């Protein structure tokens, strides 16, 4: 019993109580967290109290959400009332919010059992989860390898079954990249579809909140609860509720899928390439039309992304007072300094204005493709998880986000699903990118891939 769906059925049928399930997870956390370091804070007492409340509600015959009684975790940049929220940083080591983030409140109302807050790169700045003040997170597939970042604690917790699902944030791939490295599903919804109220920002025009789950159906179940309009988030979009489950099993017959030729370049491992091509073949076998496409400006996505996000992050973090010299780690200082550099010398070297124009160019190009195709199929990462403390340069580290940042630049939804392993047994992820608010379609294609992955 691994998925939300299975657990929900078991709780409702009386096969197991939420209390028993929560106890199981807490025991696994006690056993495995010391070596994985996925959790920063475990809220055992509150979790058991919530589980008891759900069991009592069920006993009274109340109709509950599929998430009711199922244990989960939140990335530690999502504010939780009365529970410390550190963002993986020393400067917020003792920060205890007096309000829940909207996403935390929605999950609480749906009956979710919060097991605790999971580790992350400091303020979301990193792709390896090696920059947290609270220590590195290990990849459950192989200790000593990174889980990805910045939602590495979320991905590791779900992969190691220390949490049935987790909520992460994705600014440039921070849900999808760790999901791929750890072998779980990770979804970044459309910008504006899930409230960021109460989520500590990294770069406000890119940040999005989304689920990391065991399978695609679970991602749909979580999205159904958290994708709600919230007037407290200025960027939140008011739209009709979408039923993500209804069309999940409808298949891909007649759908058009594009594969950008620019993605198959030097640096993409042969094993990842093989799995993407295998996924393309499976989609064809299931009745989809798969064609090569071109997105030439994608090569500028990484510098564009870093130029704008560092500037936004620098501005965002300027509000944090305290001892910034001792309170921030190296990676955060690096990005603050970079943002400060861009702002200070913009008059002399107008990189930022150029980056904004390139953002427009990349967005237009992606949306043009997506007006002719139902989705884009791509790798999630160029390689599998690398070793901790590896000799990657900052630029090489940034390039690990090369396939994910364009969705954040354009605000489009994207999902990574596990697709095979390399020769070392490390998970590989393949990614689907869709048009704005086309999550239901993306989940449907992802579900088809998930269910047919052993067909070749």
């Amino acid at each position, binding site marked *: 019993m691994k998925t939300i769906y299975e657990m929900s059925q078991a709780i409702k049928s009386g096969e197991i109580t939420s209390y028993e399930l929560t106890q199981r997870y807490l025991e696994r956390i006690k056993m495995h967290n010391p070596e994985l370091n996925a959790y920063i804070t475990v809220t055992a007492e509150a979790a058991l109290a919530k589980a008891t409340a759900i069991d009592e509600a069920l006993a009274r015959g109340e109709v509950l959400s599929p998430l009711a009684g199922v244990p989960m975790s939140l990335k530690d940049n999502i504010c939780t009332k009365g529970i410390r929220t550190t963002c993986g940083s020393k400067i917020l080591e003792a920060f205890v919010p007096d309000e829940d983030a909207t996403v935390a409140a929605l999950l609480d109302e749906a009956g979710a059992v919060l097991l605790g807050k999971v580790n992350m790169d400091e303020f979301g700045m990193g792709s390896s989860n090696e920059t947290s003040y609270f220590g590195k997170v290990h990849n459950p597939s192989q200790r000593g390898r990174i889980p990805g970042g910045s939602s590495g604690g979320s991905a590791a917790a779900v992969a190691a079954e220390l949490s049935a699902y987790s909520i992460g944030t994705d600014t440039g791939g921070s849900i999808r990249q760790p999901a791929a490295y750890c072998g779980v599903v990770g979804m970044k919804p459309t910008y504006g579809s899930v409230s960021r109220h109460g989520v500590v920002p990294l770069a406000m025009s890119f940040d999005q909140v989304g689920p990391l789950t065991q399978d695609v159906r679970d991602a749909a179940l979580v999205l159904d609860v958290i994708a709600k309009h919230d007037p407290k988030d200025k960027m939140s979009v008011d739209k*009709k509720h979408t039923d993500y489950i209804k069309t999940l099993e409808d298949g891909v017959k007649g759908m058009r899928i594009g594969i950008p030729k620019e993605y198959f370049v030097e640096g993409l491992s042969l094993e990842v390439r093989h799995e993407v091509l295998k996924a393309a073949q499976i989609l064809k076998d299931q009745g989809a039309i798969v064609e090569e496409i071109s997105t030439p*400006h994608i090569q500028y996505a990484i510098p564009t992304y870093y130029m704008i996000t560092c500037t936004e992050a620098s501005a965002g973090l300027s509000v944090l007072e305290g001892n910034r010299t001792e309170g921030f780690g190296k990676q955060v200082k690096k990005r603050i300094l970079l943002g400060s550099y861009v702002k200070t010398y*913009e008059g002399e070297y107008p*990189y*930022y204005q150029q980056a904004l124009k390139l953002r427009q160019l990349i967005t237009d190009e992606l949306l043009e493709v997506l007006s002719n195709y139902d989705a884009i199929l791509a790798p999630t990462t160029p390689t599998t998880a690398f070793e901790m403390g590896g000799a990657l340069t900052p630029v090489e580290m*940034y390039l690990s986000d090369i396939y994910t940042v364009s969705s954040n630049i354009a*605000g489009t939804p994207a999902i990574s699903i596990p697709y095979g392993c390399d020769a070392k047994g490390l998970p590989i992820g393949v990614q689907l990118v869709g*048009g704005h*608010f086309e999550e239901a379609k993306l989940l449907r294609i992802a579900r088809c891939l998930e269910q047919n992955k052993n067909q070749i």
Partner: protein
Amino acid sequence: MKLTAKRLECIAEKAAIDLNKQEEQYYLDELNKIIDLFEQIKEVDTEQITPYYTTEHEQDFLEETYALKAWVSEYLMMPLSVLE
């Protein structure tokens, strides 16, 4: 453009971060590698492109959240109104 020690000192002061000599060298090396990456974007002809959010005052861009809202409105809300 390479970042110099003098300019690093200036931006660190603006960011309220103190750097010792050893750190200065570390950040100079690291930041210059990234700035080299940024140089790539200069090669693209964007003369005809108008970004959906722009800033007139270089010192306070990003504080202008209304501009971001305009970008979202253009790209996310308009297609939505068509869908609905």
